């Protein structure tokens, strides 16, 4: 049956380097949890620690109240889907899927039923007698998925399973995985470096950087309220503008001077009077004809992308920002050289302290 999992103060060292540093989180029963981060951030290392292929130097990994640190990999009862599928090349599709059941001495009749059911779930039942070498990457990935879930694992681990597929197939498989996971209610830890994929597929995401978890939360929350500058930059696109708190009252309502030009009012979660970093998504800007006293700039590049238009706008201080306008909201697209004014909605933007390490706005 599906289990919850607690990762508690977990550390992985390679020599003096901490590949995973004090990781802490809980994955609820049936949850789809994603470890997201750039390559080398420790996400795969952490996944392999859960699987039992990497030793755990400090901390504990707990399945349903049971510490599994010292349980060898083959006794952990974890399903795993590998980046390169790791299909046994000398076994047929059927035997690949049956492999884990054989190791568990499942009776012949039950084994047949379970293998066939698993293959049906990934729509591969008519391929069961094929040899893996005759299957495409996407088909192999489906077999890998069936092989991992057929053993009814406590937890399902997936290590960048879609990275070797082409773009269209990736989106298709991502839906297949998501549906299957919900249908089986299986606790899943998924690793990817693709932020769009993570946003689309996960219940919650943990974003990692240099072995440290930066933020954990639901897709929407992470996108809208990133915990720090790294997250704001890694997830989606953000423009970072320099600002300064000029006035703040007791409730935290602050006047922030943006680029020494215009002032916005934002409610901060704590008393803070210093320089700040203002993070604004391209779609949170509003473009208008030039108005005195607002941020102004000149269109330097205009890219029509169908449902929206992406502009590069050079501000008066020389900084170039990215702004999106939805095609349905406007009657024309702006030309290179057009002079424009930029405003933004105060409740949609994020404010970080001057180091970018801490968010100053409430969730």
């Amino acid at each position, binding site marked *: 049956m599906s289990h919850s999992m607690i990762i508690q103060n977990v550390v992985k060292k390679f020599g003096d380097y901490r590949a995973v540093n004090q990781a*802490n989180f*809980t994955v609820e029963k049936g949850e789809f949890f994603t470890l997201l981060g750039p390559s080398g951030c420790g996400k795969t290392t952490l996944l392999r620690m859960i699987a039992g292929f990497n030793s755990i130097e400090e901390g504990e990994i707990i399945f349903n109240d049971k510490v599994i640190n010292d349980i060898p990999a083959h006794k952990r009862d974890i399903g795993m889907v590998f980046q390169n599928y790791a299909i046994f090349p000398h076994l047929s599709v059927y035997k690949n899927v049956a492999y884990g059941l054989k190791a568990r001495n499942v009776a012949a009749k039950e084994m047949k039923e379970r293998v066939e059911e698993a293959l049906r779930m990934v729509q591969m039942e008519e391929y069961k007698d094929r040899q893996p070498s005759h299957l495409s990457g996407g088909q192999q990935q489906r077999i890998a998925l069936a092989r991992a879930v057929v053993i009814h694992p406590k937890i399902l681990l997936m290590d960048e399973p879609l990275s070797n597929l082409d773009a269209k197939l990736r989106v298709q498989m991502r839906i297949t995985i998501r549906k299957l996971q919900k249908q089986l209610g299986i606790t899943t830890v998924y690793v990817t470096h693709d932020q769009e994929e993570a946003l689309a597929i996960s219940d919650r995401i943990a974003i990692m950087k240099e072995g440290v978890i930066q933020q*954990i939360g639901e897709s929407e929350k992470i996108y809208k309220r990133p915990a720090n500058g790294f997250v704001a930059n890694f997830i989606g696109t953000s423009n970072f503008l320099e600002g300064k708190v000029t006035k703040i009252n007791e409730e935290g309502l602050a006047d922030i001077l943006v680029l020494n030009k215009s002032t916005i009012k934002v409610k901060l979660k704590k008393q803070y009077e210093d320089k700040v970093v203002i993070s604004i998504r391209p779609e949170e800007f509003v473009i208008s004809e030039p108005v005195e006293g607002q941020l102004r700039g000149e269109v330097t590049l205009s890219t029509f992308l169908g449902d929206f238009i992406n502009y590069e706008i050079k501000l008066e201080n020389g900084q170039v920002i990215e702004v999106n306008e939805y095609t349905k909201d406007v009657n024309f697209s702006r030309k290179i050289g057009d002079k424009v004014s930029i405003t933004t909605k105060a409740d949609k933007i994020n404010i970080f302290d001057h180091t970018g390490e801490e968010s100053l706005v409430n969730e």
Partner: protein
Amino acid sequence: MSELQPRLKNPFSKGPVSNKKFNIRKHFNFWNMVILLSFAGLLLALVYPFSSLIFRSFLERGTNNFTLSNYKDFVRLPYYFSTLKNSFSVCIAATIFATIIGLPMAYISTRYNIWGKKLINIMVILSLMSPPFIGAYSWILLLGRNGFITKIFANFGIHLPTIYGWTGIVLVFTLKFFPYIYLYVSGALKSTDASLEEAAENLGTSGIKKLMTVTFPLILPTISAGALMVFMTSLADFGTPMLIGEGYKVLPVLVYEEFMSEIGGNAAMASALSVVIILCSLSVLMIQKLIIAKKSYTMSALRPPQVKELSLGKRIAATVFCFGIATIAMAQQVVVIITSFIKTSGPIFVKGFSLDSYRLVMHRLSRNITNTFLFSTIAIVIMIVIGLLISYVIVRKKSKATELLDLLIMFPYVIPGAVLGITLLVAFNKKPFMLSGTAGILILAYVIRKLPYTIRSSTAILYQIDPSIEEASINLGVPPMKTFFKITAVLMAPGVFSGAILSWITTINELSSSIILYTGKTSTISVAIYTEVIRASFGTAAALASILTVTTVISILIFNKLSGGQGISM
């Protein structure tokens, strides 16, 4: 952000203590035992004999005092030193000629649509696989003093230049070992990425210039590896110069004579000469590695090069060229097989065909045949087991220790068979290691000498098996050891077996260590061929050589079947 859970206390988790315990268990696992036993075996079978060889080379004859005189004599006396020059002369010449023949042949047969590619390939492999001294012997039958061709020309009053000496040795080595260049280079040419050459053409370079600036530089490491094989095997070969060299003496022949001759034999001198040969091989190997280290490129053929269509005339010419060379190379086998059916009267061939030679062999030399197959089979089984286990630790359990293991196991690669034979004989002729005169010492020599082939092909295939396949099996609940036998070993099998078949082929044809180690009871086919030739009993020698050749052909066919027609890789 705050995902911290109340810390769960687990009474069974002992923190650092349990960690330590885990480590002890980790260090006494199966694979570390394999590493430990391998080192013990190598220490006994390789390090000990060779250290005593080196030690012995510094002993004064008679008194057993430490001396440098053996080495001084070697440099000072032309009788010794000339053999070094001779060895280098024939080896360099053979390497150059082999490259001149092998390179164009490989290029033509991989890039152009000539006929009968598979047949050419098999012919070339076949000519490589039979022992060199059979080649020497058949060229004597053809071009020797009473040779078949010599006589024909003599009838017209033309006297062919003598084949004995430098010419004969170089001829046999060239025809015998050019297949290394051919096989290595065709393999490399097949796996170069076509887009590289297309890029060259796109940038305006074509024809010979493209060949010289892109194609050949890319495969230069492979060419030099092939050339190295030609050089090393030529340097190590003992049978050919012994049979066809006559007065022209090379190092291995000198070693053999120094060691074997009852009057004037000098084991200390033989040891010193052995050390010299090993040093020569090692330095050639080092030079090749140094040159190549800077010029090695890894390529994955995303798109293998296309085979070009030739016009009919050119196609015929190219095919004739390739078949011509392959036929000359294979002539030796044809000659011995035909000869084996010719009627003999004592040492003289007479008109007509018969099976007499075979009858004689069965009557007199059947023990040699059983010995050959028995010893080789035992050696192969040992090699497969050791190869499987050791290649796994070399590839998957990388550490300083396994790197050393890899290096040590490859060491016999550079040791000529005669030298290995002498080394083992000297080391194991006293208690507690009394092996001389037994079948054991022959099998030991075969395993040490041919294990590198098995290890090489096993590691090569293991590198192609993604470790995550093993992890998948473990993850699905099969313990690591069981996973090794159920998954890894099964996937490795084709590589291990094809390496083992190559080892098998070279083992049944092995002469140079057997000739030192055999006794009347443990004599093998190749030893018998050699002694029969020396006794001028050419009929029986030919019959024995034919038996070896046929066995070799069958083995190659099995190899091709096993390797899925992927061809021989060495």
